């Protein structure tokens, strides 16, 4: 039971609900669990989060309390993880000598072979952090490079280290641009027009050149015949992971958005699906519709932004359209992230299929009102803000079945319970600053992943 409580609190903290996480921690009595290393480690994390958001004059005391919790969590055989955090907290609390003392202890534990770290990466990365806290910056840099070489694709772990190094270097007043060489390649969202001829070399070359310039590590989008497929192929060629998001079952999508555009495209579609790292189908029950395509685009944009945020990487959108097409209405514009454009000419000979319109609805629920449906996420968020409700939920759908009321009990104070599609849509539209998956709910139509979303501050 305690593990479940710790997990729920950690999920709140990860979603950015700093105060709520601390309240839940205290309410469960875990703040008095002085002998439980997991509870003490979480206590350190929660106090550190509070310190980061506190007014400047309160920060040192909170960092000191966080360091104290981490130090108490250290136990024989598992000392380096809490102790390196304690050393960093001491630095942020203004206790430089204590920080050096603890960092030295961590370095000794690792270099004497008494502790190896939880994984090969973390063993060396912890050594690098200790060196950094000892102000041995060149040694820290070499050690971090070695750590990364031990697990070159452990991007989530690299990101955690980079966040920590950013803070330490800032505290030490040292230059931090050298960290950029350790950041992963960007996460790219791609989309564009359907009507490009399969043998249009000029368009293919222009798209490939732009993709090479972006050099994405991760590419997200659909695979409609034309710009999407060309961009996805180019992304794979530069070594990016390909994450395909389709509005409907691949069989349906191929029939409506690939086959009608010419006989060269279906085989290219199949080949990309075969090598894709992931395939997400937004709604298997529905046929491909314009509304479904819009939902899949929101989903893919949200995934690219989420990935970039998780990995401390850049997020970039690639838009492939005729030069005279207005970009208004692209949700990416709200994300604050850069967009790169490739101007192409639409092939006048190809017949672009007209998809059925469909209807994308966004539902909200609060404690005080019945379920309300809207046509846009912006309207939903505005209504939620107006409601002033303690608990809020949001969902999106293409069909008739409404689930949002069932999500409501899982909302936390100030945090919106959202289906993953809706949460990714909020992120893509700049309406949420953070989302965190907290589990899965089963419905007769299939499982729905549930997230907590922290709404962005309203403009102004």
């Amino acid at each position, binding site marked *: 039971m305690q*593990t479940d409580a710790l*997990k729920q609190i*950690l*999920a709140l903290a990860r979603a950015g609900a700093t105060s709520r996480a601390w309240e839940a921690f205290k309410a469960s009595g875990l703040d008095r669990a002085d002998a439980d290393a997991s509870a003490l480690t979480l206590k350190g994390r929660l106090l550190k989060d509070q310190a980061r958001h506190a007014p400047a004059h309160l920060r040192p005391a909170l960092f000191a309390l966080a360091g104290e919790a981490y130090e108490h969590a250290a136990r024989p055989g598992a000392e380096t993880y809490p102790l390196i955090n304690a050393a960093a907290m001491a630095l942020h609390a203004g206790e430089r000598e204590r920080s050096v003392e603890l960092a030295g202890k961590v370095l000794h534990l690792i270099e004497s072979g008494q502790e190896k770290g*939880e*994984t*090969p*990466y*973390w063993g060396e990365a912890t050594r690098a952090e200790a060196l950094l806290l000892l102000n041995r910056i060149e040694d820290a840099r070499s050690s971090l490079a070695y750590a990364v070489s*031990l*697990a070159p*694709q*452990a991007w*989530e*772990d690299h990101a955690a280290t980079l966040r920590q190094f950013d803070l330490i270097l800032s505290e030490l007043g040292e230059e931090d641009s050298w960290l950029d060489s350790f950041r992963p390649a960007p996460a790219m969202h791609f989309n564009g027009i359907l009507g490009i001829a399969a043998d249009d070399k000029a368009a293919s070359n222009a798209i490939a050149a732009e993709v090479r310039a972006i050099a994405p590590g991760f590419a997200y989008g659909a695979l409609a015949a034309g710009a999407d497929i060309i961009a996805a192929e180019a992304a794979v060629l530069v070594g990016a992971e390909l994450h395909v998001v389709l509005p409907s*079952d691949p*069989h*349906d999508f191929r029939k409506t958005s690939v086959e009608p555009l010419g006989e060269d495209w279906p085989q290219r579609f199949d080949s990309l699906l075969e090598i894709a*790292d*992931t*395939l997400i*189908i937004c709604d*298997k*029950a529905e046929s491909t519709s314009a509304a479904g395509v819009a939902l899949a685009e929101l989903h893919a944009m949200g995934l690219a932004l989420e990935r970039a945020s998780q990995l401390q990487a850049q997020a970039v959108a690639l838009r492939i359209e005729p030069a005279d097409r207005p970009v208004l209405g692209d949700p990416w514009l709200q994300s604050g992230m850069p967009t790169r454009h490739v101007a192409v000419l639409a092939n006048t000979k190809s017949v672009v299929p007209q998809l059925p319109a469909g209807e994308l609805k966004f539902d909200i629920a609060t404690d005080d009102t019945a379920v309300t449906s809207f046509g846009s996420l912006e309207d939903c968020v505005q209504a939620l803000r107006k409601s002033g409700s303690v608990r809020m939920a949001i969902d999106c759908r293409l069909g008739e*079945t409404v689930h949002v009321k*069932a*999500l409501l*009990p*899982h909302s936390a104070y100030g945090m919106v319970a959202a289906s993953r599609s809706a949460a990714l849509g909020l992120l893509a539209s700049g309406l949420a600053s953070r989302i965190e*998956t*907290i*589990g*899965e*709910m*089963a*419905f*007769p*139509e*299939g*499982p729905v*992943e*549930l997230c907590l979303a922290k709404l962005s501050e309203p403009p102004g």
Partner: protein
Amino acid sequence: MSGTNTNSKSGRDDIAIIQSCLSCSETSARRLSESLTSRSYAHRDIIAHMGDPSTHLFLVAEGAVVAELFGVDGQQAQLTRHGPGEVFGAFPEESSFRSGFSASGATRLLAVPTNKLVEMVSRDTELAAGIANLMARQLDLLLDRMAARIGLSATGRFYRALLQAADGNGMIRPAPVLAAMAVSVHTTRETASRALAALFRRGIVERQEDALKIVSRRMLEELIV
């Protein structure tokens, strides 16, 4: 039964799937597999019409099955959906389908004749216990749906299964059959494969000869969401 389904004898992976879903010995799983047929369906293929005779119990090995009813107004309504590791059909007696069933995505079912299964469970206590556990788990799933309870994500369930399969030293020996472990936690082989690849990538789990080793139990536990 209709649709463009293809039937074949069940294969080696299917024995592992049965063993994993029923928590039974390989001997019992092998015995049951001799009476199994593997049936594959394309997206939206009809598996059964409402009122068709129901003479088999089906285990969803890949994809999903949707049960739909026509209301008095002629509108089609989805009654439920069975994903990987769930069963539907007739047990312990042959009956008729109470709703129409169709495939959602490319779907593969393992089918065993109801009468044959009843005969086998009356002689094999491991199989009987396995079927009872499977039914009980499915009842839990149904109650979770009714109560709108939040459970672990598919990746979280897979990680929990890995932890449960490990001994005190973090060893999982022999290495699990991924397709089988995936079905037993109601997810797809692709999801399980991606989840395991993420653990290898980060060094949280490492591959050893005929075994997997959990390098960091704490980090794996943290991923169970």
